[in-house]
């Protein structure tokens, strides 16, 4: 969709998996989701993070593909592997800095998020960003993100010596987080009289 960009803000994610379930409904991949939502560290936090394909400007998955099966369109969307070409070698699965491509062993085919080409090509938003009840996944015009959010979008990532620029934006905290939930303990927020503490 012209004038729309994809934004991920993990801080908004509530781990509900609406995106995962909705993605799985797509009849091109038949019940298999192309998104994952994971707890960062469930014993210590309720924080979750969704992962979709970031659609790199120079996609590592395509660079390492020996069969030239992964194509990037003019719209910047990196497609799933082409069925007749893919040799199921797993190079892309291992090389992707974001850990996105999935090997469908039964189909001998790598599949991944193609930003709902079937939807965006007919003027609909990608399914995950449409249903996401916290808009941790958002597909909106850049002006709207700038107007509505305090966080700022970024799309340059450093992995060791590799610098990756992506079509999908990650929202970066505007300031210090209000409450750090990376590793928390409810007991730290409680009032426990001295005699009651163990």
């Amino acid at each position, binding site marked *: 969709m012209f004038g729309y960009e994809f934004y991920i803000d993990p*801080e*908004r994610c*509530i*781990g*509900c*998996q*609406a995106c*995962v*379930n*909705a993605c*799985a*409904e797509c*009849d*091109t991949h*038949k*019940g298999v989701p192309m998104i994952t939502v*994971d*707890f960062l*560290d*469930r*014993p*210590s*936090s*309720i*924080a*979750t993070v969704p992962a979709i394909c970031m659609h790199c400007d120079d996609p590592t998955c395509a660079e390492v593909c020996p069969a030239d099966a992964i194509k990037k369109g003019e719209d910047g969307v990196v497609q799933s592997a082409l069925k007749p070409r893919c040799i199921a070698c797993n190079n892309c699965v291992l090389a992707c800095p974001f850990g996105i491509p999935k090997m469908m062993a039964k189909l001998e085919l790598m599949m991944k998020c193609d930003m709902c080409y079937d939807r965006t090509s007919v003027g609909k*938003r990608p*399914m995950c960003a*449409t*249903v*996401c*009840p*916290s*808009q941790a996944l958002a597909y909106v015009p850049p002006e709207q993100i700038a107007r*509505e*959010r*305090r966080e700022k979008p970024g799309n340059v990532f450093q992995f060791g010596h590799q610098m990756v620029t992506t079509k999908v934006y990650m929202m970066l905290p505007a300031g210090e987080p*209000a*409450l750090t*939930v990376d590793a*928390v*303990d*409810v*007991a730290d*927020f*409680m*009032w*426990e*009289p001295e005699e009651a503490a*163990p």
Partner: protein
Amino acid sequence: MAERPLPAADLLRLYGPHLSYTPPGGWDEQRQLPVERLVKTHCCFCGQQCGIQLKVRDNQVVGFEPWEEFPFNQGMLCPKGVKRYLQSTHPDRLLDPLLRTAGGFRTATWDEALDFTARRLTEIQEKHGKDAVAIYGGASLTTEKSYLIGKFARVALGTRHVDYNGRLCMVSAGTAYKLAFGVDRSPNPWSDIPRAEVAFVIGANVAECAPITTQYLWRCRDNGGRLIVADPRMTPITRNADLYLPLRPGTDLALLMGMLHVILRDGLEDEAFIAEHTVGFEDVARSVQAYDPATAARVTGVPPEAIEKAARWIGEAGRAILLHARGLEHQSKGVENCLAITNLALATGNLGREGAGCMMITGQGNGQGGREHGQKCDQLPGQRSIADPAAREHVARVWGIAPEEIPQAGLTAVEIMEAIHRGEIKALLSICFNPLVSLPDANYTREALEKLEFFGVVDFFLSETAQFANVVLAGSLQEEEEGVVASAEGRVIHIQKAVDPPGNAWPDSKVYIELARRLGKERFFPYRSSREIFDELRQASKGGHADYGGITYEKIDRQMGVFWPCPTEDHPGTPRLFEGGRFFHPDGKARFVVTEWRESGDPVDAEFPILLTTGRVVSQYLSGTQTRRIGALVDQFPWPRLEIHPRLAAQHGLTDGDWVTIRTRRDEITLPAMVVRTIRPDTVFIAYHWPGGRSANRLTHRTLDPRSKIPEFKVSACRLTRAAGPPEWVKELPPGLALPGKDRPGKGLPIIGGGGGA
């Protein structure tokens, strides 16, 4: 009499729950065949009532498409909404009426099943009196069905005992709002939440139980608002809280009274609002004098400085929104807890303005509309009191009977089950209610069901409760009959019929109309369509607080919903109540109501030293009759786990994934432990959506709030012991679902088929 007809394993094999994963015809057919129609309607599950489009082909719901134009959710959905379409063609659907036999159930014709039902109800009423029969309704039904069930009980059967499972949901808040404001509705539309400077969320696991509300809270923060969350657990919305108050279960009242104490001590009250628009302030001010922050901290376990900060943020804000749900309502002082909220809102002048108010988050699909028009034991249509002579006269005129023919108020849902247990109520006709899973003290509920002389159930799946029935009347899903519901906002919306009921199943309303005919009351139930029922309920509600007089199906479609009250057809509806400080009491003023602290009905002691609280998960809905049959939703959270803090776990020698037996004064169950630092170390949590040995409600108690009669699901006392091995219930899991095992480290999601004692 009405014992379970077959062993659990046989019932499971015949009636499920089986897990459905794929659309009818499978994914390949889904891809190849065109969708015939997209039907703009609403989700069948919670009180958010999200707009959704259902894909229809060959009289089957085969998928969904977001409905982005509907203003409340703008296409957003939770996983339940995404997967709800899998019910329409589910293999467990009841396609014929069932009659109980010596060896189980057999299918029956409608004539046979309805004649039998009418005969048994008549026999029992002739022998034991009208009130020996009780009616249970449900808050997922459309308003037309709810209205019909209330009228059926009072006109066709003449019993005073009609109540509904909304008794487990909104009654504490509803009672409190009626006392304080004179009306039972959330005063503000959800669009007010992002306008607040401070959003205070107490006892509401918004992210899992009302997921769409999350975005409203996040937009509040986007706009610079501050979020305060009070909960014994860090629920997902806590990740963006500016202040977290980890209160001990059952102590909400002390926290709220402590906050009002600080507001009054520091002179942060809105004196002009209090003087012009309220009565009773002085008594409430006196009642919170003893609740200084240190005292409140001792009761709640929340630090005094956090209580002060929360109070000051609310008191100093120009616009604050106070949101609450079952966490504080499911208590034996649920009404007082909500009154402490209304007191706080009134004292700070946070009502009747954009971005300023207190809001109950209605939980059930039609929790709001279902209680307004007649299936609540003490109400007549239009949110009228059944004790009010003028209300009785109005409704009697619409119904074509004499006012004295309308029975007086009957018992509430839990009290009805107790009257059955005592042998006073002999027969029960229930729809859309699975009390064996959802009522507290499940063993007591089972004993009561076994005592019934006649038990009839209208449902689309054979729920755990329906297994005890003498007759099961195959009813309809939400998408199989037209009607309206009122969402948590008080927005009346239009449920479209997408498909006919499958097989020989009937629309629910037809079941009651045909039963009324067999009871000789045909002339009071002449309806040929949902629209005719709606038009009558518009008349019946006219002049009441919940006035639907000016609402039509067409107007709802045109306006994307109509907020009640809407007295005339040229009235646009009322998104925000109390504008200009005008309340619904005859003098137009709101009431401060004094609240008093008291202990839970099941207090901790040396024998049962740990607090147990119960609640929900995002992928399951209520008693799970529907959602425990949808594969993807079950996989997301296949069985209940005991959430426990590592400190408490260590005291019991437990690590993540270990089997642990939870014992209360009622019963014990054994579950896998889930060791997390996101819960208070003196509290454990269990989600309640499951039956049998996985049922949290085997542990809960029947103490009721004296006014709302809501059970105290949120506070029980328990003790824990490490269990030697897996319990019996692992054998009762749906076919295809592997046994629970050790959780994947760090992920919090179960591995299917893992080891760990299974």
